C-alpha cells in the first residue's frame, strides 16, 4: 500500500463514507503499513512493545526509555532504577514485571502532581488495580512523554508558573529542583540515589550563587529567606538554558559583540594523545599554517582574560556542555568538568560547522576555536558562544520552517526514496551514541525536537551523505536528524495507533475480545461488538468463568473511559490526514502526521475542548 492510497481512503472516511472498501483500506494503512514503516507495533501493550524479534517495536520502546529518563530527572525514579532499566535494554531483555510496576507507580505520582491531567480531556488514571494503571500508561504514553519532557526541557518549553509557591510538592517544584541539580549540585559529591525532589528554601542560597555568576543580573528579584514566591524572571532563566547562557555571557563579556578575548584553558589526561592529535598535519603548508596558529594563540594567551572558574558549580562549563549536548555532539554528564568527552564534542562541533550550509564562523575563525598550547588546550569561548547560538533551539514557527527546508533539501538531493530503508537499516549503528546509559545513569539523551531539527538543518549536507551511506561521522547532525525523525514518528504512530484502536472498536465494528483462563489449551472467548449505531452484540463462551467475564467487563469499561478522548483525537487526526498532500514515502507521512499530533497535544494541554466541542463526559 502506498501513502497516497491511504490518504485517499482517509479523505473518504472523513466524508463519512463507511464502505467496507474504505474501512479495509484505512485499517490496512494504520494497522499494517504504518507499523512496518515506523517500526512501531500497533498494539501498545508492554508485552508486545518489548518483544524482540521480527515485529516492529523499537520506537515504542524508545518512548518508554524517554519516559524513564524524564521521571528519573524529576526524581520520581532513582538513578539506580535508571541504570537497571538500561541494563535490561542493553542486554536485549524486556523490563521485569517489577520494573514496570515501579515505573507505573512513578507515573501515578507524576500524574497526581501535574495539573495537566485533571484539567484536560484525558481520562483519569485509575487509583487502584495495577493492571488497569499499567493499561492506562500504555495508552497514554505519548501524552506522558510530552508532559514529562516539558518539565525537564532546557529549551523554554515550560512556562513560568505564577501560582508556584516555594516548597510546593508539585511537578513544577520537581522541575526547578532538577535544574538546580544540573546547574549546581549534581555529581560533585559522587553519585547518589538520594536527591532533593522539590525546590525549597534550602536551595535559595544557590540562587544567590547563580546571581553572582550572572554578574548580579537577578539581584533585584532574588527571594528573601522567608519568601514564598519565586520571581517569574528567575523562573524563566532557570527554565530556558539559552536565556541563561546569554545572560551568563553578557555578565562575563563574551557575547558575539564583545571585542575582548575570553578563554578556557584545560589539560587532558597525558596518555590520551588527544592534544597531539590536534596538530597532525599531513602537508607542509598545513603544518606551517598550524604553527602560525599556535604562535598566535600563545601571544593571545599572554594578554587574555582567562576563564578560570565561576564558583564551585563551574556554571560556565556546565552551560557549554549543555549547548554541546543540545547540538548532538556531547553525550557525557553535564557536570562542569571539561574532560575528554567535552573536548571531543567541541572538536566534533567545529568539524561539523565546516560543512554547514550557512556557517556562522569563517574557516579562519573555526581554526581559532580550539587550539593546543604545549600540553594544554585553549578554547576561545566567544567563538564557542557564537557557534552554540547557531545550534540553540529556534522558536516554534522558525523550527517549522527549518523542518520544511530539511525535507525540501532531502527531496532536492534525490534521496527521499532511500530514506525509509536507510533509517530502518542504519539507525542501529547510532545506538552507541546514546551514551551507554546502563553504565552512566547520570547521563541523559537530548530529546528537544526544535533543537534536533536545527542541528540537522545546519549540516544538511552531512545528513544527506549519511542517507546515501557515504558518511561515517555520526555525532552531531546525523544523530540529531535520526532522533528528530524517530521522535516524530514515535509521537505520530503511538498516539494515532492507540486512538485508532478506539475508533475501530467504536465506529468500525471491531469487536472487543477477551480470552478467559480456560482449561488446558482451550481458552474461552468473551466478546462485545458495537455497531456504528451502538446496537451491540455480547457473546460469552459457556465455559467462561465469572472472573473471565469480570476481566472482560473491566477491559471494556477501561476502553469506555478513554473513548471520548481518543475518538476526538483520532477524528481530528483523520481529518488532518485527509487534507494532506500525499507524500511518496511513509516516513514522511509519519513526520507530517506528527506535526498534527503535536498540534492536538498542544490543544489538549491548553485545556480547551478539542475541536471546539464541549466535553461530553
Amino acid at each position, binding site marked *: 500500500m502506498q501513502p497516497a492510497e491511504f490518504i485517499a481512503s482517509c479523505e473518504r472516511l472523513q466524508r463519512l463514507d463507511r464502505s467496507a472498501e474504505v474501512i479495509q483500506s484505512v485499517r490496512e494503512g494504520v494497522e499494517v503499513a504504518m507499523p512496518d514503516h515506523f517500526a512501531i507495533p500497533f498494539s501498545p501493550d508492554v508485552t508486545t512493545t518489548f518483544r524482540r524479534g521480527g515485529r516492529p517495536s523499537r520506537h515504542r520502546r524508545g518512548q518508554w526509555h524517554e519516559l524513564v529518563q524524564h521521571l528519573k530527572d524529576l526524581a520520581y525514579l532513582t538513578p539506580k532504577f535508571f541504570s537497571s532499566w538500561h541494563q535490561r535494554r542493553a542486554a536485549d531483555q524486556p523490563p521485569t514485571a517489577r520494573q514496570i510496576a515501579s515505573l507505573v507507580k512513578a507515573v501515578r505520582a507524576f500524574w497526581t502532581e501535574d495539573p495537566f491531567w485533571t484539567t484536560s480531556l484525558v481520562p483519569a488514571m485509575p487509583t487502584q488495580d495495577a493492571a488497569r494503571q499499567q493499561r492506562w500508561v500504555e495508552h497514554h504514553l505519548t501524552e506522558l512523554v510530552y508532559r514529562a519532557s516539558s518539565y525537564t526541557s532546557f529549551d523554554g518549553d515550560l512556562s513560568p508558573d505564577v501560582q508556584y509557591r516555594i516548597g510546593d510538592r508539585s511537578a513544577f517544584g520537581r522541575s526547578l529542583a532538577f535544574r538546580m541539580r544540573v546547574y549546581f549540585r549534581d555529581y560533585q559529591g559522587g553519585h547518589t540515589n538520594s536527591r532533593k525532589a522539590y525546590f525549597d528554601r534550602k536551595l535559595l542560597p544557590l540562587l544567590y550563587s547563580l546571581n553572582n555568576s550572572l554578574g548580579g543580573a537577578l539581584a533585584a528579584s532574588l527571594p528573601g529567606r522567608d519568601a514564598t514566591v519565586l520571581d517569574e524572571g528567575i523562573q524563566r532563566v532557570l527554565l530556558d538554558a539559552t536565556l541563561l547562557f546569554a545572560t551568563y555571557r553578557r555578565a562575563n563579556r563574551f557575547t558575539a559583540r564583545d571585542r575582548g578575548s575570553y578563554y578556557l584553558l584545560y589539560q587532558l589526561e597525558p596518555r590520551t594523545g588527544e592534544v597531539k592529535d590536534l596538530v597532525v598535519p599531513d602537508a607542509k603548508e598545513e603544518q606551517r599554517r598550524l604553527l602560525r596558529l599556535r604562535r598566535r594563540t600563545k601571544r593571545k594567551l599572554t594578554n587574555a582574560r582567562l576563564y578560570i572558574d565561576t564558583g564551585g558549580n563551574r556554571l560556565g562549563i556546565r552551560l557549554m556542555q549543555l549547548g554541546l549536548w543540545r547540538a548532538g555532539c556531547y553525550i557525557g554528564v553535564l557536570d562542569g568538568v571539561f574532560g575528554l568527552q567535552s573536548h571531543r564534542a567541541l572538536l566534533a562541533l567545529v568539524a561539523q560547522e565546516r560543512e554547514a550550509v550557512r556557517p556562522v564562523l569563517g574557516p579562519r575563525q573555526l581554526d581559532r576555536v580550539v587550539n593546543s598550547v604545549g600540553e594544554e588546550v585553549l578554547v576561545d569561548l566567544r567563538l564557542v558562544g557564537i557557534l552554540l547560538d547557531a545550534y540553540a533551539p529556534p522558536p516554534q514557527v522558525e523550527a517549522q520552517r527549518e523542518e520544511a527546508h530539511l525535507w525540501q533539501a532531502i527531496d532536492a538531493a534525490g534521496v527521499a526514496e532511500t530514506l525509509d530503508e536507510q533509517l530502518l537499516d542504519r539507525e542501529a549503528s547510532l545506538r552507541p551514541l546514546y551514551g551507554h546509559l546502563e553504565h552512566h545513569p547520570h547521563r541523559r539523551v537530548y530529546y528537544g525536537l526544535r533543537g534536533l531539527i536545527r542541528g540537522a538543518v545546519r549540516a544538511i549536507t552531512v545528513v544527506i551523505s549519511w542517507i546515501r551511506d557515504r558518511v561515517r561521522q555520526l555525532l552531531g547532525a546525523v544523530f540529531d536528524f535520526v532522533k528528530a525523525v524517530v521522535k516524530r514518528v514515535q509521537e505520530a504512530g503511538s498516539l494515532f495507533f492507540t486512538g485508532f484502536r478506539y475508533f475501530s472498536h467504536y465506529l468500525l465494528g471491531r469487536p472487543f475480545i477477551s480470552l478467559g483462563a480456560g482449561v488446558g489449551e482451550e481458552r474461552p472467548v468473551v466478546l462485545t461488538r458495537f455497531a456504528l449505531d451502538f446496537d451491540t452484540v455480547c457473546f460469552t463462551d459457556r465455559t467462561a468463568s465469572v472472573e473471565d467475564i469480570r476481566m472482560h467487563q473491566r477491559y471494556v469499561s477501561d476502553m469506555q473511559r478513554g473513548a471520548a478522548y481518543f*475518538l476526538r483525537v483520532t477524528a481530528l487526526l483523520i481529518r488532518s490526514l485527509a487534507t494532506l498532500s500525499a507524500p511518496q514515502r511513509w516516513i514522511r507521512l509519519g513526520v507530517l502526521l506528527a506535526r498534527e499530533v503535536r498540534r492536538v497535544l498542544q490543544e489538549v494541554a491548553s485545556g480547551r475542548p478539542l475541536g471546539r466541542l464541549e466535553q461530553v463526559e
Partner: protein
Amino acid sequence: MATKSFGDFINDMTSLDVVTLTGNLTVQVNDLEGRAAGGDGESLKFGRIMQQLEGNIMKKDSKIHALAATHVSLDKDTVTFVKENLTPEEAVYLEFHNETVKAAGIARAAMADGITKLLLGSKG
C-alpha cells in the same frame, strides 16, 4: 442496498439494541503467539473469531442461544427479554448484559454528535 454512511447511521440512532448470546467458542492457546489472556492484542485473529462465531450462529444445529435482549427506544423506554430459568452462571452473564446496555447508551450519547462534526470539520 447502498452502504450506510456514518451520517445515515447516526441519524438512525433512534433506538438501541443489545443482544447477549452464549454458546461454544474457544481459541487454542497455540494460536496466540505466546500472548497472555485478556486485552485485545493484535495476535488475536479478530476476523477468524468473528467468522467462527457467525458460522456457529448460522448452523442449523447451532448451540448458540440468546440469553438476553434489550431494546431501548429514543424516549428511553426500555424492554428486556431474558431467557427463562437462568442458572447461577447465567445470572452473571445477565449482569454483564445489563452493564453493556448501560455502556452502549453512554457511548452512543457521547459519540453521536461530536465525532461526525469533528470528522467533517464542522464548528459545531
